[in-house]
């Protein structure tokens, strides 16, 4: 087994590249990657060559298994759905259409577990927050956004982040 540390982005890139190939293993016990911690990636090359860097393998040759803790698995699932949603949404203007796409609905379907992940996503998006408000509203049944701030995504993001900090989840 080869252990290396990779940033969450590197891991996601590897996952996206491999697509249907099962690979990737993450061991990040107790380290929520949403907070920017590196993920320990362990890859098992099929021919068990002593390769110094598993990412240097032809990814099809890599066989591995997920040994992630549940928190990391949820984060990886969420990030995959985020990417799928953004790809499928394209340049749609309709909030309703965007929110009813399957990946977005799957995020809502993650329920309470999705809330801290969405808040983390909002934080990471900074001054260009995406449309996570529908999901937050649907899951939490709350709406901390002032009526006059509807449509102003920056103010809406601030309201939700503040709500989360004050109320937790």
């Amino acid at each position, binding site marked *: 087994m080869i252990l290396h540390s990779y940033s969450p982005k590197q891991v996601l890139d590897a996952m996206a590249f491999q697509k249907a190939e099962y690979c990737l293993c993450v061991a990040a016990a107790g380290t929520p990657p949403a907070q920017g911690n590196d993920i320990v990636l362990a890859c098992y090359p099929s021919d068990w060559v002593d390769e110094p860097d598993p990412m240097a393998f032809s990814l099809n040759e890599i066989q591995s298994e997920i040994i992630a803790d549940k928190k990391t698995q949820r984060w990886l699932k969420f990030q995959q759905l985020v990417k799928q949603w953004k790809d499928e949404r*394209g340049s749609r203007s309709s909030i309703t259409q965007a929110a009813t796409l399957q990946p977005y609905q799957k995020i809502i379907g993650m329920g309470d577990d999705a809330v801290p992940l969405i808040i983390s996503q909002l934080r990471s998006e900074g001054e260009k927050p995406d449309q996570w408000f529908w999901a937050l509203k649907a899951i939490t049944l709350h709406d901390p956004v002032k009526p006059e701030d509807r449509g102003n995504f920056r103010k809406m993001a601030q309201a939700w982040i503040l709500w989360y900090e004050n109320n937790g989840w």
Partner: protein
Amino acid sequence: MAGSWRPQDHPYLTEDTFNITSDCDPIYNCIAWAAGDNQNWWWPDDMEIGYWPVGIPRIESMDAFVQAY
């Protein structure tokens, strides 16, 4: 991503048929821009996420859009 749209969504555009006038910005949409607003995302969704002028039905219909303008 170039402009406020994705090039793959407009495959027939070529370099000599358009100009990029601004970077992509997820803060506002085409409807808002047409109304001179680049700070809000306009949409009459019934979850009340988007901005929509007060008094105009939050319905995705041509009539509602005409009234909004």
